[in-house]
């Protein structure tokens, strides 16, 4: 048992226990930790944004190194960035919508092509499987389930017709496939949450109390 001598580890350990106190009851210590967390992370983000984005991608190319021939265009994002702060002036906040408009335009477009290629075209290609693989019954059954599972799930998410008769049957099978996939996600999520706790307990036992020899 060799206790850590670093003040930082002690503070971190006390903050960890402060947050765990929420399990017993919501209390002032938890509230303080929570507000400290919000404050520190907001401060951290701003410093990070300056040194890792604003300086290297905007200030340096715009004002010092002129190597890249289109660097003068960087005055546009500089203006758009400043316009964002017009939200603080009662009259001017419509100006900030110019900057948000750039974001509102770029991301839907990136997602149309990204989802279109990665989640649509490639998945269609991935589902085109031979339904009879000579000499390999396991793969054949697997392919039937993969293709059948996908088609029935798509049919479940079909809204233009009542789920009756054959369509109803297919949708029902689709729900069974969905439920198996929800069960799998439930099992994985349990694993995820538990391992985060294990990670934190390791910090307390190893870094703080020094009772755990890795």
């Amino acid at each position, binding site marked *: 048992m060799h206790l850590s001598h670093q003040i930082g580890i002690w503070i971190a350990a006390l903050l960890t226990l402060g947050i765990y106190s929420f*399990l017993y009851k919501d209390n002032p210590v938890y509230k303080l930790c929570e507000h400290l967390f919000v404050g520190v992370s907001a401060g951290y983000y701003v410093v990070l944004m300056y040194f890792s984005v604003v300086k290297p991608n905007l200030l340096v190319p715009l004002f010092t190194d002129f190597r890249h021939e289109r660097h003068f265009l960087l005055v546009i994002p500089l203006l758009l960035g400043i316009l964002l702060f017009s939200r603080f002036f009662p009259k001017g906040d419509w100006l900030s919508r110019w900057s948000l408009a750039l974001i509102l335009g770029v991301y839907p477009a990136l997602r149309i092509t990204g*989802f279109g290629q*990665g*989640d649509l075209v490639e998945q269609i290609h991935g589902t085109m499987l031979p339904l009879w693989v000579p000499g390999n019954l396991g793969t054949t059954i697997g392919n039937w389930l993969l293709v059948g599972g996908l088609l029935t799930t798509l049919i479940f998410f079909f809204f233009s017709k009542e789920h009756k008769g054959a369509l109803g049957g297919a949708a029902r099978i689709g729900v069974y496939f969905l439920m198996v996939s929800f069960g799998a996600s439930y099992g994985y999520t*349990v*694993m*995820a949450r538990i391992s985060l706790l294990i990670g934190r307990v*390791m910090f307390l036992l190893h870094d703080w109390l020094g009772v755990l020899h890795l």
Partner: protein
Amino acid sequence: MSAFFANLRRLDRRWIFLTVGLLVVVPLLTGFHIAPVLPSARARGFYDAIEKVPPGSTVLLAGDYDPGTIAENYPMHLAVSRHLMRRNIKIIAVELYPGGPPLADQVLHIAGAEYKKREGYDYVNLGYKSGNEAVMSAMGSAGIPRTFPADRSGTPVGQIPVMKGIENFGQIAMIVSVSAGYPGTKEWVQQVVSRYHVPMVAGVTAVSAPEYYPYLQAGQLQGLLGGMAGAAEYEVLVKAPGLATRGMDAQSLAHIFIALMIILGNLAALPQRTPGAKK
């Protein structure tokens, strides 16, 4: 029997909290060992994919996670850095999560010290860039040096030996995505893998692992590690048991307990057969 279940239902959930806490602390304290970690086909696939990368080539290591999921992502990040460095593969690290850069530094410095690799010559940490998918798309189109003009501490990319000749994904042999959520493996697959034909493997949190199996089956991913279990299996393959392997006993115990809770919870909720029992 039904009396047992009746008061089981009124159980204060803080007893359950206490049990979970003990089930995690006891194995870690006592080193009580339940079952060995055996690598699954998935972990072996991830390992073999990296074994196929020729030594001397350059890999993009995307550490897109933050301290919130250190327990799952950090062991993968460290194990893959060791594996790449042991095979003399050069590493360019980027992080699209604000909380990422210090974790990538730590991983690269630990592995770098073990395998005598020098920062700037064998690996570099280009740090964080805001913009999520836009960063990935820009790296492929405008190019990596224009999107990341400097490394994490401001050294211009032109002065970094490992970046020499690196223009875009044409010079990247493989992408290793250590991911917690958005932006992460899904966005790398959508914005880069299909567009620039770069092979990719992913080490992800358990919550997000199920969603990436379709990418694995469609050949967009060459390997996938899911959660702490995936990390532990990979650590065994890389012969560097660390945090993940150490935690698996507690993980096993906790899972058994929760499985029991599901079964017991349902039994306790069964309508009581004994006559006269209060409905």
